[in-house]
């Protein structure tokens, strides 16, 4: 296997060819914030939180999909990047309705964690208070669009791992909405196997188990990773 050597935040690293900058950084214990990315699902590079600076180009590149190449010099946490990340988090909070104190995911929410790590203690941009709905038609799960950040993890896990393709993105721009089936109530979509994978990977309190109450939801991406690994390597008894 051929090796690529590069420098991330001043540390010299050697990684196998094909490794992404995100994987290389994580391997070395360097934290880069992510949201849309989830190991085990196809990458979309949509949230732009993982953008990094690379010497020799003005373009910021998403670490989650950029392969490490020989001699790359990468900065992951410059003041410019930190300000960008804070702004991304502000843009996310202001476009939805996030009331952490009463959210099922309070304390276990990736968005909330990001607000903490990026120092977003208040938004410099105005809140938009959009009118959004809640879908409680499914017997076991619920979807609160107010908390959805459109990361499409649910769309991808249901399509790529469960093979049910219940979810999609409907409309466009600020009107984008996660839709079940052909924009039907979730409970009316026969394709859903009730597997709960979408709930497991949802980084916020948007998808939840009915019956969970404030602060009771924990997302479980590790279960997904174990499943994908098992399928990929045909190893069912780790």
């Amino acid at each position: 296997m051929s090796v690529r050597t590069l420098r991330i935040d001043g540390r010299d690293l050697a990684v196998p060819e094909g490794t992404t900058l995100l994987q290389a950084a994580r391997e070395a214990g360097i934290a880069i914030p992510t949201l849309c990315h989830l190991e085990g699902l196809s990458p979309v590079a949509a949230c732009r939180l993982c953008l990094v600076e690379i010497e020799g180009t003005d373009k910021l590149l998403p670490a989650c999909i950029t392969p490490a190449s020989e001699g790359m010099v990468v900065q992951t946490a410059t003041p410019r990047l930190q300000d960008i990340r804070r702004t991304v988090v502000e843009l996310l909070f202001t476009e939805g309705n996030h009331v952490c104190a009463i959210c099922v995911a309070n304390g276990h929410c990736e968005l909330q964690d990001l607000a903490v790590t990026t120092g977003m203690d208040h938004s410099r941009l105005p809140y938009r208070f959009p009118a959004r709905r809640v879908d409680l038609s499914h017997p076991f799960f619920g979807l609160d669009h107010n908390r959805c950040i459109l990361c499409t993890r649910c769309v991808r896990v249901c399509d790529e791992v469960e093979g049910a393709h219940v979810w999609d993105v409907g409309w466009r721009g600020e009107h984008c909405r996660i839709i079940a089936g052909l924009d039907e109530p979730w409970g009316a979509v026969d394709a859903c196997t009730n597997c709960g994978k979408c709930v497991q990977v949802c980084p916020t309190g948007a998808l939840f188990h009915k019956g969970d109450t404030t602060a009771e939801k924990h997302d479980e991406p590790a279960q997904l990773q174990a499943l994908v690994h098992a399928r990929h390597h045909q190893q069912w008894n780790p």
Partner: protein
Amino acid sequence: MSGILRVCTAAGCAGCGGSALREQLGAVIAAATTGDPASGLALKGVGCLGPCGEGALLELESASGRRLFGGITPEGVAAVAASLANLSPGTDLGTWAPPAARPIDLEQPFFRLQKRLVLEHCGRIDPESLAEALAAGSYGQLRRVLQENRPEAVIEQVRRSGLRGRGGGGYPTGLKWATVARMPGPEKVVVCNADEGDPGAFMDRSVLEGDPHRLLEGMAIAAWAVGASRGFIYVRAEYPMAIAHLRTAIAQAEDQGLLGAAIAGSAFGFQLELRVGAGAFVCGEETALIHSIEGQRGVPRPRPPYPAEVGVFGLPTLINNVETFASVPPLLAIGAEAYAAIGTTNSGGTKVFSLTGDVRLAGVLEVPMGTPIATIVETMGGGAPDGHAIKAVQTGGPSGGCVPANRLDTPVDYESLQELGSIMGSGGMVVMDDSTSMVDVACFFMAFCREESCGKCIPCRSGTVQLHLLLQKHLAGEADAADLAQLESLCHMVKDTSLCGLGQSAPKPVLSTLRHFRGDYLALLRPEPEATPEPVP
């Protein structure tokens, strides 16, 4: 008497009397008996004649030359037809003055300074007649290159011509073709981007409506050069006439063995399909366009991989703009060196612009690259009407910027416009007079981007909304210096972080007007509250 009557029946004129004019003149000519002045006249519905703002238009060609008449209204059509029917015997077409029509001087700069290569046949031939296209020389270059059978030589010609992508990016076309040609694999695809979604742009439409065979020939040459056997034209649904003319042209070309299997008796086959897009601006972005052709949701994906490697159905794909493909036959006809000599060092050839806004003569024109903007908007377009002065010229639509009046000497080429913070774009050129608020202009384009954002990435989906709100706040006179600073920094953030070209360039109209017309923004700021004077003890 003999002669040709040409009526512009392209979309710009069809609705304002062009269609009715052709119909009624046709009836007069059909009813004429031998000896009547109208008998023996040829009548053609043609594509865009150029000065679209003057429609409906009628061109008379006789032994004594060509004369153009404009300003014919739907109400005036009957009078024009009656006048033709009642011409006294012996009248020559060269002396007929249609009533209720304004003569348009064909020697004025608008026509004289043009260099029509892409639009060579547009407005001359009937776009629905393959015979006329063939008589004008269409498919001659395709036949020739097939006979010579040296695809690398064609790519080399395109490279040496200096032709760059007319879809806005200006990527060297020869290089793109060479990259796709080098890709391994037996199956490749050629795609024509005819989405033309920028407000104020209608150049591609005039080619599609006025001379579709020119595009088909260009695409077939490209397909042969890069080794593709399938092609798609992705055209927006808002262009019904373009779609109809393309359908007709494809069927005609297939019928004559100029498309389909074994083209012009060679071993080369090229299957061309039309795909009609539902008119989303983002579907003009090449990766979104590919998804849309594949039947998926039209959203962009990160590049690399570029379409040249992974395109339609995962196959190596060449994507070019309408005008890029349509430039190929004339380029090959005059030769790469002659073509390159027309433009500037870095931008070869000609460029079609659609000129609109506060300008006397609006329409579609084709000029050599490097022509100063002033020549286009002032000399050719006649400047701003009603005693106003030009304040700025907007190029590149929602992805571009404004060139201020004191920089109108700037030549139109990719680099010069970029230096000014605008872009060449696909060719929309909107003239704004001194009554225009540049904040208004910036707000209009931001509203457009907000509406057209696909919503995939956060900076564009949510950032364009916040930017639009900030601009509205300025227009309402409620913004202060901190809002202006926030507007500027958010512009940079959205530009630097968005996933595709739409979001990356959405802030450009704001940044460019902030650069050249900061005063317009400052004038709108809320006055700082006056400090209350200390009470005198």
